């Protein structure tokens, strides 16, 4: 709203947050239910009254038009991938094809009960089987379990497989090696699998420090968990050597596939010697991120790990009267068991399989090549001008699909932190890159431009950074107090943690 013609805040800023509960008016409603069509037996004749609820849950009382207005309105308080450039490192914010939403919504998919008899769900099982086969080829490993719900569940599954693998051999190693650049889910998963995290250092070119690795390898190492290219965007050239070192010591190799988008059709984790790979279907395979899910984290495994994969597994069998019969195989005696209910995030499988069909083998390879080209181009642009001066790249070499800059000089010379830069980018209409990760790099800024972004957008982003740094040279306060144009400005996160208000008071 403007007072007397001057803008004091943006329209969205003026429109203060009101929850759906606060819009409630007693007696309002949206739903009309179908008639029960049966006797209106009092409830306490069906269920003993001491087991019944005494007061109804305080849900909102709102009409249908109110609901749609409420959520449409607050939806516009989100920045989304269809609004603009979203170079969030490690997240592969690639375009989400709407075709995939269309096919996922077909009633044969969307309205299929997970306990449908396999004979009546052949289309779904075949689709899962075909996705397994595709991921197997992409990862270079013979067997795929689609069950895990996301990357981190894939990790945990993989570590439990590792445990089962060793146990089956009568071994009980206790340690898992992870580079210090690893994503937070890796160590968290290691702990949940009952292992101890042992950190491995990073060398000067961004890869694993081989000496440090060698010094830590022992019979007590269950596996090495690696992201390759790693979170610095660097492909570890010593991978073959690492693999043989770990294997020789009896350990397994786990591949965090969050960065698979760099290497599809170029190189395969299986060929690098990995035994277990998880793939984030919500990254390389275009499942929309949904504001934080859903995703899926299938795992691909080598033959020696195969007996232990979660059950049930989709298999192709022969059956009289059928060209091929797809079934759920529960009869896997060495399986670790279930990671979750039913068969996994099937709706995600449909989208990712549609994506694989759309791109094809050629298209996937091309996508990776263009992702890497975009990253290197943007890295080149960031080496120019003020960015080159204040925001040096952490490891100056060709990167893969992403690269990491350090804001340390910027902080020192201009007095603005990476966080300030990120917040100021919001005013320029960009989603900032990932900040303060990997931890190894001081004031890190992790940039992943993905293949679905046009060159213009990369240039605009580089120009915006230049502009912000220029501004900061004359007035660092601009960035320090940014953003100015977003629906809300910087928020008090400390206060939120100190006195948590995490639900609407009654």
């Amino acid at each position, binding site marked *: 709203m403007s007072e007397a013609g001057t803008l004091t805040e943006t329209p969205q800023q003026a429109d203060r947050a009101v929850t759906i509960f606060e819009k409630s008016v007693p007696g309002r409603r949206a739903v009309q239910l179908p008639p029960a069509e049966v006797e209106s037996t009092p409830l306490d004749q069906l269920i003993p009254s001491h087991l019944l609820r005494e007061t109804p849950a305080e849900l909102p009382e709102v009409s249908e038009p109110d609901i749609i207005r409420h959520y449409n309105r607050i939806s516009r308080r989100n920045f*989304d991938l269809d609004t603009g450039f979203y170079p969030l490192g490690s997240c592969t914010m690639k375009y989400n094809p709407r075709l995939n939403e269309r096919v996922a919504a077909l009633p044969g998919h969307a309205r299929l009960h997970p306990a449908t008899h396999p004979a009546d769900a052949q289309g779904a099982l075949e689709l899962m089987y075909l996705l397994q086969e595709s991921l197997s080829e992409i990862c270079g490993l013979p067997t795929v379990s689609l069950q895990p719900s996301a990357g981190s569940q894939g990790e945990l599954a993989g570590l439990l497989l590792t445990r089962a693998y060793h146990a089956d051999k009568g071994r009980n190693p206790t340690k898992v090696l992870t580079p210090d650049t690893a994503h937070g889910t890796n160590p968290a998963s290691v702990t949940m699998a009952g292992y101890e995290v042992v950190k491995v250092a990073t060398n000067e070119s961004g890869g694993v420090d081989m000496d440090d690795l060698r010094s830590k390898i022992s019979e007590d190492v269950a596996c090495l968990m690696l992201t390759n290219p790693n979170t610095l965007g660097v492909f570890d050239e010593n991978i073959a050597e690492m693999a043989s070192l770990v294997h020789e010591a009896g350990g397994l190799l786990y591949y965090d596939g969050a960065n698979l988008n760099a290497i599809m059709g170029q190189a395969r984790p299986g060929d690098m010697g990995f035994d277990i790979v998880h793939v984030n279907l919500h990254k390389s395979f275009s499942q929309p991120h949904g504001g934080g899910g859903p995703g899926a984290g299938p795992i691909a495994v080598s033959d020696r790990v195969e007996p232990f994969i979660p059950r049930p597994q989709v298999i192709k069998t022969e059956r009289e009267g059928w060209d091929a019969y797809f079934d759920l195989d529960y009869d896997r005696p060495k399986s670790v068991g279930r990671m979750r209910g039913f068969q996994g995030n099937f709706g995600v499988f449909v989208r990712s399989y549609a994506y694989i069909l759309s791109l094809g083998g050629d298209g996937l390879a091309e996508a990776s090549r263009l992702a890497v080209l975009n990253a290197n181009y943007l890295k080149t642009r960031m080496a120019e001008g003020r960015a080159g001066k204040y925001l040096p790249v952490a490891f100056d070499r060709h990167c893969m699909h992403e690269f990491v800059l350090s804001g340390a000089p910027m902080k020192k010379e201009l007095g603005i932190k990476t966080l300030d830069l990120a917040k100021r980018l919001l005013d320029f209409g960009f989603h900032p890159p990932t900040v303060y990760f990997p931890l190894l790099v001081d004031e890190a800024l992790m940039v992943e431009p993905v293949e679905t972004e046009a060159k213009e957008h990369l240039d605009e982003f580089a120009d915006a950074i230049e502009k912000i740094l220029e501004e900061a040279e004359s007035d660092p306060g601009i960035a320090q107090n940014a953003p100015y144009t977003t629906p809300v400005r910087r928020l008090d996160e400390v206060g939120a943690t100190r006195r948590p208000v995490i639900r609407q008071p009654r």
Partner: protein
Amino acid sequence: MAGYTPATSEDQAAMMAAIGIESIDELFAQIPDAVKLGRPLDLEDGLSESEVYKRLQTLSSWNLNTEEVPSFLGAGMYDHYVPAIVDAITSRSEFLTPYTPYQPEVSQGGLQVMFEFQTAMSELTGLPVSNAGLYEGPSAAASAAYLAMAATGRKGLVASRGLHPHSRETLATHAVGFGATLTEVPLADGLTEAKALEAAIGDDTAALFLQNPNFLGSVEDIAALGEYATSKGALLIVQVDPMTLSILKPPGECGADIAYGEGQPLGNRLDFGGPSFGFFCAKQEHIRRMPGRIAGETTDLDGRRGFVLTLQTREQHIRREKATSNICTAQALNALGAMVHLAWLGKQGFVELGELLARRTDFARGQIASLDGFELLHEAPVVREFAVRSRRPVEELLHMAPDPGDSAPHLPVYPLGRDYPEYEDSFLVAITENRSVEDIEWLVHMLEHGQAGWGEHIHDHDEDGNPVETELVEASQGARS
């Protein structure tokens, strides 16, 4: 290959020139030749959008979906009617395409939804703390166990056999990693056996897991069953079907420390089992041990109300190996669907729906119990699902053809045999508001036929082949006026 990548050959040339390379291959030089693939992927080439659509439409048509035939399948996922506004809202780019709200200034939409969702789940469960959602039901059980172990410093997990078999199996899988032991308490007459339960609980029991209604559909007396466990210092953890919380006493009022469950019945389509979401609520004292994202209310530097991800020091990206959970990407969009559905049902409608389910279920249960060859597996009170025992073997009963070799479809009810060998002769029937009395009558009719071996009765009605399918179609589409 689809037009998702904008780089033209001119763009590519310009970018290569800027980088100072002649070919994109140079960028891949860092990959040692030994591990390079060196051949095209052995996958089909890319297809056009219309071809992909046609292919997947065809595959999908080989699935028997709940629009084609009335489904009485449940077992944790239910064919409720998902109102059209859920799709309208969840399909908006603004909700569909962003990631986790790491930059709260431009994520207020998603964060506010989380805050509202937390409020709604807290209301449903009667517990003050809710997170913004987990993957789905059974893996939430594992999260609850992890919390309980950390909270109590104990390692024993005790679970009723009425807990969903997928939850029990998921718990068992994770227990290996957690270093926990899992003990099961049997059922009797459809309910958790109280005596056996007490016997199973010991000084090292971290948590007791119950389910309400339990897997056989029975309403358990959670407060009574839980008392002993909590008196022994164990946490009481209850898996709940959120739809039944419309009428059942909330776990928070039954002494539960944690209530969690599968969220699919709220605003999520079946999707052959996922994606849906799990919810997770707890007592105040557990707030800093919660798994998953939590949104909190705060203010911006001009004093405007706003929301942020809060209590992040629990989480993996801050705490790494000491995190309370490894979860990162979860199911935000599915939780939004639930919130919209709950707002649509509203305070009154939610209760009415619970009542409708209980009454229609009672009707269906009575009808089937009175059929020759069938009897109830148990007489315990139920809300929306019940178990039936059949004289004729279940697999034969459900395969809607006289000859097991025929490729007829299967009657959509849930056979208990795989999960409960002791109930191999039984199956579950689930009811939703989508299952009209006409549908229930169709089921009754089909069960009668099935009990009689599918043969003769059917030929009574139709003489020119494949009569069951005809009836299926009729039942699902209503009689032609």
